[in-house]
């Protein structure tokens, strides 16, 4: 279930905004915690912003997969059902 391109861009914007990163600093596979000094509170902020933006509910257990952009794309794709 791929995520639409415009959604991917929006997700990237949200993540970069919360982690205070420029978009060229983050790749699909760079790790929020290890590579970008994020902590668990930032992860929850990302989750909350995605829920608001896409009008979905994401279970907190999904945080374990939301370690990089790729993981976030997958979780959002599943929660939006496409």
């Amino acid at each position, binding site marked *: 279930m791929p995520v639409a391109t415009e959604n991917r861009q929006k997700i990237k914007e949200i993540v970069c905004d919360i982690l205070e990163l420029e978009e060229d600093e983050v790749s699909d596979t760079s790790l929020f915690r290890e590579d970008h000094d994020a*902590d*668990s*509170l930032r992860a*929850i902020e990302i989750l*909350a912003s995605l829920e608001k933006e896409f009008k979905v509910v994401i279970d*907190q257990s999904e945080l374990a997969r939301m370690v990089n952009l790729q993981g976030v794309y997958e979780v959002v794709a599943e929660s939006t059902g496409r």
Partner: protein
Amino acid sequence: MVLTGFGVFSSIGVGAVEFAEGLRSGRSGAKPITAFDTKGFAHANGCEIVDFQPERWIRNLDVDELGRASQFSVAAARMAIDDAHLDVETLREQRGLISIGTTDGESFDLDQLVESEIWFGPENMDATIARRVRAGRLSAAVAHELGLTDVEAVTIPTACAAGNYAIGYGFDAVRTGEVDFALCGGADAMCRKTFAGFYRLGTIAPELCQPFDADRKGILTGEGAGVLVLESLESALARGARIYAEVLGYGLNCDAYHQVAPNQASVARCMELALDNAGIKPSEVDLISAHGTGTKANDITEARAIREVYGDLPPRTISIKSMLGHTMGAASALAAIACSLAIVHGFIPPTINHVTTDPECEVDCVPNEAVEADLRIVQNNGLAFGGNNSIVMLGKYEGVR
């Protein structure tokens, strides 16, 4: 330094007598929240005080000019003085300290102001409510109500350990002779901001608070106040006061390790500071009243820190938050009162809602039923966001030594 009067507002009992009964019988304060609109939350239980009548306790001030947290602190201070059989006229001749800890201050009022700002614009914010919001009023209003002018009135905002900070400050002020008496404790009122914040963090339990349980799901927010009268032993003996317990010492530290995650080494260090300050050895401690919020993170970290200091056979370690929820800035003040009542009445309050102890929280939490016990020394933990820790050591008063 001894404790001679208690003012208690909690969801399991008002006043020291009722509170002690609630603790002994394992009463639960959990019920659906009515303090604010909970629409949109999948679950919304809390430990509210539903029948609070501030006019019964606040005689001189206009209760409408006080936020709910200040109403709690003023009412609890009045109750504590009555409980200690202190004459207000006499107190007015003495030097005193009023130290009240809080997490949220009057955030319930802030919630209302923000709501009216959003719906109706800032010009329509209620002026009376706006006047109530300063956190300093939690302590200043006590001085106003009682007509105490030769006092320092301070509100200590070190979040969920603030009650113990306030007691520690009172202990030092009385011990050094700076003041003749201290009214210290903590107060907080339920508010949407704190509920929503903890909810967003995934740390609000759907129904019940189950500290140290393998299946624990988080906290329940609560409210209330605990105010303690602290005076020197000489002062208490001279006026023939009933003595609940001695304050033996306290420890506090702030590690600023993380906004919300507790740090094990720092919590252990705080226990050592409290033990050193009180001049006692770990082997002399009979009971630990844990911070015990019922979150995954707190209970594991706290239990491990306890074992770091106490070894493989720590004293029984209970959480009264299982009964009255997390009363935030009031929590460690109410717990200090609970510890003192446990010492006086010879019992250990249970950790209720307990099914199976988490193997990662290796403590005897006295599940579900209170037990009889002769307690000489009790440790009261308060751990807060930002790594603000404060621990108070309480002892049985066993006569003049």
